[in-house]
């Protein structure tokens, strides 16, 4: 069985009056059991030449529904104002600004449950990886 882990560290010395140091490690397993995820797509990069157009990064119809897929995204832009708008189906999730990353649980709930990206400028690059529960 494959073992895939995801660790997050959130830290700040001046956001609160005491230091913030939060660490969490998850072992990525299949839905409802302790078997590790065994599929992946990526690690990959996509450079989108045209700005402000929506692209489907992952199509919900291509993956098993209501599972424990995980998506990693990182905006490789170094221009502070540039962002990818992340959308699921037609619902905006949020803006991933330059240098930001995200780890999103994705259920691929139905065929329309696509993960879409919309860059705010031309020639932006997104790094991404999908761990699949098939």
């Amino acid at each position, binding site marked *: 069985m*494959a*073992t*895939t*882990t*995801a*660790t*997050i*560290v*959130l*830290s*700040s*010395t*001046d*956001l*609160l009056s005491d230091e*913030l140091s*939060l660490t*969490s490690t*998850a*072992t*990525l*397993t299949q*839905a*409802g*059991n*302790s078997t*590790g995820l*065994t599929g*992946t797509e990526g*690690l990959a990069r996509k450079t989108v030449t045209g700005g402000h157009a929506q692209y489907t990064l992952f199509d919900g119809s291509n993956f098993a529904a*209501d*599972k*424990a*897929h995980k998506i*990693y995204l*990182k905006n490789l832009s170094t221009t*502070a104002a540039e*962002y990818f708008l*992340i959308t*699921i189906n*037609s*619902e*905006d*999730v*949020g*803006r*991933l*600004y330059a*240098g*930001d*990353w*995200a*780890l*999103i*649980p*994705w*259920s691929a*709930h139905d065929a329309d*449950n696509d993960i879409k990206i919309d860059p705010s400028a031309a020639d932006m690059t997104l790094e991404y*990886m999908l761990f699949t529960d098939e």
Partner: protein
Amino acid sequence: MATTTAAVTLTSDLMSDSISVSASSTLMKAGTTADGLDMVDYGVIEIVTGDQFDLLDADNPASSPIAGVMANKANKVYIANHATDETYYVTIMIDAQNVGRLYAGDWMFIPWGAEDANADIEITSTTGTNKIEYALFHQGRTLNAS
């Protein structure tokens, strides 16, 4: 300005060569490298089975002293499920759109645009009671006068 960093490390042996991906970002206000996110909402709550709850409300009602977060900014949301039974999970939705399932031990870290009053982060437990830890890093709220 506050300086808050979010770092992730992904490791795996599911390929013939090992996977090790790391990233670290400083949580900045939208469109700037000079000013960090300096506000946080943090909590732990038990989610019982049955109803869907607004874990984070994009636009709290006027009766609440704390109204919604500023829309279309660089807000970040961290959610961790502290359940230990592997069959337990919560479903995360935004404005009724299914995002994904957060199983026991899982965590997530996402940008949140809160682009309109309906863009709440909603949570439903469909198995047992799940203890949820959450943090919202944001750059401001509109406050309701008392």
